[in-house]
């Protein structure tokens, strides 16, 4: 089965509202990265976490390695936040490889 289970698969938000995306891991992960893939297909680095919580503007992410999950919170959503959000995790096997979730398609509408 998948090592990285991401939910929801799709999310629709009104401008100004917020929500959370979640990734559950079926094996121990050492670190997680979150990306936004925009309409052009570019992957934008949002966060890298080995533990704890990081915040950047309207985004906040938490990684709990003991309980094997990570979350990405979006508040005050804007139209430009629309896109596909991926979490990706590193098993720490010293290959550097990231295993991606299936992504969350976020649509922010007026």
């Amino acid at each position: 089965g998948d090592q990285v289970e991401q939910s929801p698969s799709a999310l629709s938000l009104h401008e100004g509202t917020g929500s959370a995306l979640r990734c559950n891991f079926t094996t121990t992960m050492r670190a997680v990265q979150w990306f936004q893939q925009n309409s052009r297909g570019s992957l934008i680095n949002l966060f890298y976490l080995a533990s704890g919580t990081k915040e950047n503007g309207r985004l906040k992410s938490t990684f709990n390695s003991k309980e094997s999950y990570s979350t990405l919170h979006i508040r005050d959503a804007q139209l430009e936040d629309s896109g596909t959000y991926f979490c990706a995790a590193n098993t720490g096997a010293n290959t550097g490889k990231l295993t991606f979730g299936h992504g969350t398609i976020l649509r922010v509408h007026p």
Partner: protein
Amino acid sequence: GPKVLQIPSHQIIDMGQMVTLNCDPVSNHLYFYWYKQILGQQMEFLVNFYNGKVMEKSKLFKDQFSVERPDGSYFTLKIQPTALEDSAVYFCASSFTASSGNTLYFGEGSRLIVV
């Protein structure tokens, strides 16, 4: 932030022909990766590369695929011969380390269409 450049951004190629996708990684990075994404789906790991060698490859990295980085130039993914199912966006990434402290930086992708 650090930039990974990919050339070409897109290419259309006849089935059976060879294609080479080029990646210019972040300048001080030592580890290089290729990922494959079919039409907005999941990013699938293909291969990673360090010190002139493949470290790990997935089942998607078929015998027709090869990677190299001759003399510190572009990190390349070559597909020979191409098949219809190779149509996808190929993303290159690089990182400074491979330990759990690494952050991968991705290029903008090379969209390959095999006809």
